[in-house]
């Protein structure tokens, strides 16, 4: 399967879900959706054969938005395994909640939990929201991956 073919097939599959689809050669397909459609889009993608999530990246654009990127691909169909689907959704800065996709992709379980822990995104429907994963239980304060959380740098002079 080549890139264009897959892109058009995805476009066809997601026609009614008002998803913005753009491609980046040779193997990345970006799908932008709003958060209320994301579960449906994920289900469609799973039906197309993208059966697992490789990574969940949350990106902080201060005072503007959060972006959550699910990088999905396929294990069961090795033709599709070459392609990486980036399912993206933007979240408003003051309300970083999005439905969890663990029902569709259980492989996102720990990834979502980590982004919750370190970036403060709330994945609705995830059973471990509010629990710590990597940070100590007693940690309070800003989620460390936020841009507001500054770390000290020393510079080159002693």
């Amino acid at each position, binding site marked *: 399967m080549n890139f264009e073919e897959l892109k058009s097939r995805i476009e066809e599959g997601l026609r009614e879900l008002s998803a913005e689809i753009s491609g980046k050669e040779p193997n990345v397909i970006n799908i932008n959706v709003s958060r209320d459609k994301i579960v449906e889009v994920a289900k469609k993608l799973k039906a197309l054969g993208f059966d697992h999530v490789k990574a969940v990246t949350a990106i902080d654009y201060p005072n503007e938005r959060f972006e959550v990127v699910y990088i999905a691909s396929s294990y069961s169909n090795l033709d599709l395994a070459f392609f990486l689907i980036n399912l993206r959704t933007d979240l408003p800065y003051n309300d970083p909640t999005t439905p969890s996709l663990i029902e569709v992709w259980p492989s996102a379980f720990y990834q979502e939990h980590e982004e919750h822990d370190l970036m403060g995104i709330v994945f609705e429907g995830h059973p471990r929201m509010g629990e710590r994963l990597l940070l100590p239980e007693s940690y309070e304060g800003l989620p460390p991956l936020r841009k507001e959380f500054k770390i000290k740098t*020393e510079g*080159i*002079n*002693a």
Partner: protein
Amino acid sequence: MSVDKTIRHVKALATGIKYLVSSKRMTLMYPDEIEEFPDGYRGMIKYNWDTCIKCGLCAMVCPADAMKMYISKEESEEGKKPVRRPGINYARCVFCGFCVAICPTNSLKFTKVHDVVYNTLEEQVYPPEKFREGVPKPQYKKKPKKMRAILDEERGLRYEPVE
């Protein structure tokens, strides 16, 4: 107990006995013997005071903030303006060798020294004046035998004394 299992038990025991009676060993008897490292080993770094052009690239590329630019006192007083030279903090150094690789005049060079003991954290900081004196000599209670690791088809690694 099947025959196959019995055979496999016997084979395992026989292999154990084979190694019990053989005299192969992999150990390098550190610290009585120490390994002489191959060329290009990324050990502690020596500094050439004279060829250094004080460009600061080494401090800029250092991933661990170990290499820093220190004010070189004498030179600064002489020239009436601050002159900065690199110094290293071995408490932080990760021995990646980026500073050596980026130095445009080869003023930083690797040595093969790596096993040095310090009593305090402060001792591990080498400002330029100390840095130029070279790397400390490892101190041994008894002079160790220097051994070279030789790859061997029979034994994997074999250590041979270096003359």
